[in-house]
């Protein structure tokens, strides 16, 4: 089995991204429930932030594919 260490690295990155996206989603839901009329702005901001976090996770995954 090759690439085991790389898989652990990717797993760690996914844990980080999961925590980040969970926080973003949770806070966005909170914000929408506090101010429902701003839900459109909050939602697009939420997607943008989730996409940024996902980008960091994707880079970790790419690196762990190539450096194994």
């Amino acid at each position, binding site marked *: 089995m090759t690439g085991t260490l790389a898989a652990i690295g990717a797993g760690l990155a996914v844990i980080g991204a999961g925590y980040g996206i969970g926080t973003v989603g949770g806070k966005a839901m909170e914000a929408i429930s506090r101010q429902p009329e701003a839900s459109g702005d909050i939602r697009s901001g939420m997607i943008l932030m989730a996409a940024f976090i*996902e980008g960091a996770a994707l880079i970790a995954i790419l690196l762990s594919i190539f450096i194994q």
Partner: protein
Amino acid sequence: MSRNIYSALLIFTAILFSFPAISQGHNHDDHSGHDHDSHAGHDHGAHEGHDHAAHAGGDHDSHTPNCSGDHGDHKYDPAATAIHHISDANIWSIMEFPIPLPMILKSDAGIDMFMSSKFHVASMHHEDGHASYNGYVMHEGSAYRVNQAGFPMDGSVDHGPFTHGTEMVDGKERDVKFVCYNNTPYRIEQRTTLDGGVLGGGITNFWDFSPTKNVIAMFLSCLILFFLFRGAAKKYKTNPEKAPSGLQGMLETMVVFIRDEVAIPFIGKEKYMKFFPFLLSLFFFILGLNLFGQIPLLGSVNATGNLTITAVLAIIVLILVSVNGNLDYWKHIFWMPGVPTFVKPLLAVVEGMGIFIKPLTLMLRLAGNISAGHIAILSFIGLIFIFGDLFGGIGSGMGLAVATPLTLFMMAIEIIVAFVQAFVFTILTASYIGAATEEHHH
């Protein structure tokens, strides 16, 4: 919504990291499938001319399969099937009926142009050809070229089935493919790729410039978009006072959404019109291709799930942002104002990397999400064959009962993902443009 992106990413990650395990298991199968004596038995008599040292330099230990064994009873391999179906191809199989595409191939022998019908691909035959043309053969939908002396390199020649073997190149085990001709395996090579061997490619003995399935799909989806928008635009011209209806209403909703939720908030009211056409083209091109790939039985086109296509989109964004970046943008990258001097070079390195990482993530996100969706659907459909292998006909029925709702569910999610990913690509592009053109008031 973000959960969908994330779950798709998770599936993609899981599948990516099961690659080493899968490929190892696959190789073991191949080892058991052929006897090692065939290697020695093959280099004799009339075939003296093509010993293995002739076509692969360096240290290697190759296992050449024999051609006499039966190759029909391969067990169903879900990973290989999924990868085959999301890959680009030189042939378009609609419900297993192959539609030939043009081939433009360049090798040392010159440029060859012909239709891929020359490979004589039968329907229901996994896109494997039955005839070679000028030394080119078709295996699993891709063109290969024979790279071993003795094979007739001119004109159309009927050949036997394909086999696989392995060889050691610089300490790494690599899969090598062979085509059988007169019961002798001949080594075949895939097209040249410019990844330098990182993804398993490298410089081989021919270049492939053919318009593949993905290229044709891009043209088709552009054509569909052109007629959709021309129809809508005509309505505005002939009857501007009337409220939008039908197709026009649908397109107007999306255009207004991109303007009000993406372009104006991120780029600003004064400058957004300069970039609005680009953002709209980007959004509808990606959305069109995403949805085009979701149409069942249409050859599972995976154009936006292909890294090269998303790479081109990302490079266009990189050029656009760099060209339109104002002095403030570049100053904030290379000499960040307002921080201590000793931090400035550090930030310059990080921000300089950021210039390239931003388009890189754009490229990976789109390709990863769309490919992940396709792989998930193909895996669920594969359940039918896995159960069928295990329990026979009853198993196939069981698999069908499990796979149908799962596949339908995944396809429904994929339609959401198609919209979300097109939106995310557009909104991120808008935010990069916005950051590059923003006026700072220090």
